[in-house]
């Protein structure tokens, strides 16, 4: 049984103008110690996916269908108290902007100790000791003084280290990191990413890394999901997808990387923009922007096709596979 099994997850935002589905039919699994990258444009549903795993969507968002099974328990329907015992304990989250994540009026020590006390029967002294150990693990300089300090006394990089330390406090099975380095200085980004990678490896923690940085995903994750307009369109081993993307959208993303450009020429880009969730086109949601669009793409939703070790939701890939099979048979 996989550690985490998300199946047919659908997330709905009930707005006055009608319900908007931010996630549709999202299914994937995560094994113990595995590192999974989730990539996509802004608004593709990456963050919503991260929050819905812990059922942390704020109103009016809610899980409208599907399940999130963690060790067999469905987090989407779990009672609040049981859910609380998993949050921060077995599955923890690291947020995007460390400037906003820590409570400005509570000391670092209070914010770390309370997390331990919420999940374990433990004295403040012991909890402080564990907090110190974790601060050392994230290579925080002079950790003792940090416990007494308030967030505003620390830099962005230091705050993100503290958030990571809080994420690791209870030795969780899974960490969900929602663009953990986006808000940081470029020089700090690599440092924090390395730190997270090392800590996850050392502690055998599974990582769900949500990002739009393909470079980071290729370095960190073993498997990846590509999301577009609330759906997964391609998933599989990171190496295979990076080296040989099947879906036209993923190919477009790869070609848009500055590393792929010829010096002196314009960077490649995917034409158009992602449709707003209220107006997702019929058929394949990528069809208006796709270079290889077929007639069938405009009417039918593509099912997943196995291609190598990857699963791709594309009619074209399906047809090409079909032809290959025919050629083999002949």
């Amino acid at each position, binding site marked *: 049984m996989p550690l985490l099994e998300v199946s047919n997850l659908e997330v709905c935002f009930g707005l006055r103008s009608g319900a908007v589905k931010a996630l549709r039919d999202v299914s994937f699994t995560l094994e113990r110690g595995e590192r999974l990258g989730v990539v996509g444009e802004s608004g593709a549903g990456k963050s919503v996916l991260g929050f819905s795993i*812990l059922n*942390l969507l704020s109103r009016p968002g809610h899980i409208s269908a599907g399940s999130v099974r963690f060790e067999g328990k469905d987090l989407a329907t779990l009672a609040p108290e049981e859910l*609380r015992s998993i949050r921060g304990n077995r599955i923890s*989250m690291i947020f995007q902007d460390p400037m*906003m994540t820590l409570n400005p009026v509570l000391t670092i020590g209070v914010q770390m100790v309370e997390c331990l006390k*919420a999940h374990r029967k433990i004295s403040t002294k012991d909890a402080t000791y564990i907090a110190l150990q974790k601060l050392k693990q994230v290579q925080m300089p002079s950790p003792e003084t940090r416990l007494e300090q308030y967030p505003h006394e620390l830099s962005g990089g230091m705050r993100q280290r503290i958030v990571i330390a809080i994420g690791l406090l209870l030795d969780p099975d899974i960490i969900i990191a929602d663009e953990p380095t986006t808000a940081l200085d470029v020089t700090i980004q690599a440092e924090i990413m390395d730190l997270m990678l090392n800590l996850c490896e050392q502690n055998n923690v599974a990582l769900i890394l949500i990002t739009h940085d393909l470079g980071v995903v290729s370095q960190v994750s073993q498997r990846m999901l590509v999301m577009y307009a609330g759906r997964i369109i391609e998933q599989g081993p990171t190496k295979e997808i990076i080296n040989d993307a099947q879906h036209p959208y993923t190919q477009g993303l790869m070609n848009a990387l500055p590393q792929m450009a010829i010096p002196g020429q314009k960077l490649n880009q995917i034409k158009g923009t992602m449709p707003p969730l209220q107006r997702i086109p019929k058929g394949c949601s990528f069809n208006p922007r796709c270079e290889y669009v077929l007639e069938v793409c405009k009417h039918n939703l593509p099912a997943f096709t196995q291609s190598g070790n990857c699963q791709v939701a594309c009619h074209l890939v399906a047809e090409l596979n079909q032809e290959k099979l025919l050629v083999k048979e002949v």
Partner: protein
Amino acid sequence: MIAFFVKRFFQAVVVMFVISLISFSIQDNLGDPLRELVGQAVSEEERQALRDEMGLNDPFLVQYVRFASKALQGDLGDSYFFKQPAFDVIMKKLPATLELVFGATVIIVLFSVPIGVYSAINPQSWFSKTVMGLSIIGISVPVFLTAIGLIYLFAIELNWLPSYGRGETTQVWGVWETGLFSADGLKHLILPSFTLASIMLPLFIRLIRSEMMEVLQSEYVKFAWAKGISPRRIYFLHALKNTMLPVITVGGVQIGTMVAYTILTETVFQWPGMGFLFLEAVNRVDTPLIVAYLIIVGAIFVVTNTFVDLIYGLVNPTVKLAGRK
């Protein structure tokens, strides 16, 4: 810490200087103190002689300098009516007013925090919607109408509570005449306190509610949920502490304002406080008393704001004052 208080002290001096200047310059327009003082039978010549004697005919600046130099020595002049130092007259009435403001503040804190927090957490519940509706009415109904309504209902119809006066008072430390330590005194305090609180309470409920709703949407509250902290701790520590920052700032100013609002409340309830005294002083054109009242209220304003800043500094770690390293 000391620097902070020294700064505040000078601020208070400046505030009181400005207030005294303003109140001094309007005194000529309040009416003729002589008419109230001596009555109809005194001839015009005698009046003029009295005016000269009292220094009322001197130029404004001369009068003001004379007043200010005395005021600096703690003498704010004698009340025409009471024939006593104006300062002493007001100080005698101050406890009653402070007790009224204290009563109203207790009511505001006791009711606004739980109601505000509840309606922020459950904005869709019928209770929150009712409270929001009622608060609009509360803000828009004038104080004296609230007072009369309360008197009609609780004093006349139900006959539960007294409608005027302070009731039985006791002496504490020889100087503080208080109604807080006798059942009768407390009973007398209830209606005036609720009346005085009636304007501020809805304001505070709405303020706490809207601040809290904003804080509940913040990233750090979301992060607290993600950490698995209990809802109680999230609402009453993580969220409420941040909610209170703007509320404390507004609250400090409002408590000062309430001292001024007591004029209406005290009049309706015949509450023997300094607001009631002030209204009488205006009627009698008792200028030294009016000026002294305005200066003392100004001082109270500065003192409460100083306290509020101290409390704010304790709650908000990003503010450095009062000796925090």
